[in-house]
């Protein structure tokens, strides 16, 4: 564990992402949480390489060619939510999700043949993350019915805002995704998948919180998030 933290802090210290390693605190509760977090998001292998590498915007644009056929030239995905919007997502989140899918930690058989390591290498993941996180966020996205937004706001503020931000902006440094203005159907499907244990690479606290939600709670929360507006969080380096 100590080695992992040391490796992480060395790697991230030189990283263009300049993430600060969490201080190590002793005590059994802390250790359990650390284990849970490590299981959620182990920073090792190609994920560590990609997070430590300096992404290149132009190379990212070229690497993205193989993704464009589904995620679209503006990286807006599909308004029907069959493919998510990637433009403006945090670089950390893009790296986590892509490497988790490649490592089998998140199932995505539809995408894997076009995103596995024989197609895209670890440096190119960093390039992709740089490119996508710096793209402008397209104006159009899929939204829900808009029927229970006040109720959704109450649940969101109580349960979700701490991690995903008051306006759905997420927390780049902690790998918490930006959910604001993601497509409604994508949010809904993925929240259902997390609740039902079909999307395996989620933060344990997220799984805990979402367990109690009924389908209709998830629908109205997805609707609410699809309408959130917030500025993207980008690495300070200009592209």
């Amino acid at each position, binding site marked *: 564990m100590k080695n992992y933290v040391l490796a992480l802090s060395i790697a991230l210290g030189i990283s263009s992402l300049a993430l600060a390693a969490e201080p190590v605190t002793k005590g059994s509760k802390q250790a359990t949480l650390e284990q849970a977090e490590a299981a959620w998001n182990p920073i090792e292998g190609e994920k560590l390489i990609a997070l430590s590498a300096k992404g290149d915007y132009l190379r990212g644009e*070229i690497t993205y*060619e*193989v*993704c*464009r*056929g*589904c995620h679209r*030239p503006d990286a807006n995905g*599909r308004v*029907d939510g*069959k*493919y998510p919007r990637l433009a403006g997502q945090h670089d950390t989140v893009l790296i986590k999700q892509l490497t988790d899918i490649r490592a089998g930690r998140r199932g995505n058989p*539809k*995408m894997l*043949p*076009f995103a596995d390591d*024989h*197609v895209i290498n670890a440096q190119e993941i960093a390039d992709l993350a740089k490119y996508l996180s710096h793209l402008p966020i397209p104006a159009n996205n899929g939204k829900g019915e808009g029927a229970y937004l006040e109720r959704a706001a109450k649940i969101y503020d109580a349960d979700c805002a701490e991690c995903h931000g008051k306006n759905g902006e997420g927390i780049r440094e902690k790998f918490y995704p930006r959910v604001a203005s993601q497509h409604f159907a994508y949010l809904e499907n993925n929240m259902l998948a997390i609740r039902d244990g079909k999307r395996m690479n989620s933060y344990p606290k997220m799984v805990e919180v979402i367990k109690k939600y009924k389908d209709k709670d998830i629908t109205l929360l997805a609707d609410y998030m699809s309408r959130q507006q917030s500025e993207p969080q980008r690495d300070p380096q200009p592209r």
Partner: protein
Amino acid sequence: MKQKHWLWLMLVAGLVMSMPSAQAADPKELAATVCIACHGPDGNSLAPTFPKIAGQQPGYIEKQLNEFLSGKRKNDVMATFLDKFNKGDVPGLAALYAAQKPAPGTVEDAKLAAAGKKLFDEGNPDSGVPGCMGCHLEKGEGNDRYPRLAGQHQAYTIQQIADFKSGKRSNDKAKVMRSVAERMTEDEMKAVAEYIAGLQ
């Protein structure tokens, strides 16, 4: 003194390495005597089973010719001509055909082409077929990394997708095209080929 020896050695080594691996023939001569039989006088083949190569991306032509020579791509018809050219001829041939004007194809079934356009642009999100325009670009023009498709004969396009699907053709970069083709139905192949024929 020692350093000077090294410089000479490197110079000679550099010269040897930069020499073509085989004597290159005049690409125009080759095209007019060998390639013309199937690919036509200007790279626009008439028979729909032979590909149009006029205006094709030069990097793609080079890759295909080199892989026919090395055996990585196999084709019974091309096989009979592989003793007519060598690796040294490839860059000249690629440049020659890339510079020729591609002739437009003929759409025979507008309804089928319309279905093909949807697939070309958007793919099939339910089966996971990506839109062709992702790699081959909006008008099927291709780029340094992906081939031009625009105006190609329907029969040739369908055959290639089917061969990628069956694995008979396996020289695609990173198995990407095989992964796409595996998910395509025969009807989708026909539709997209019909649309591609009409692209310019």
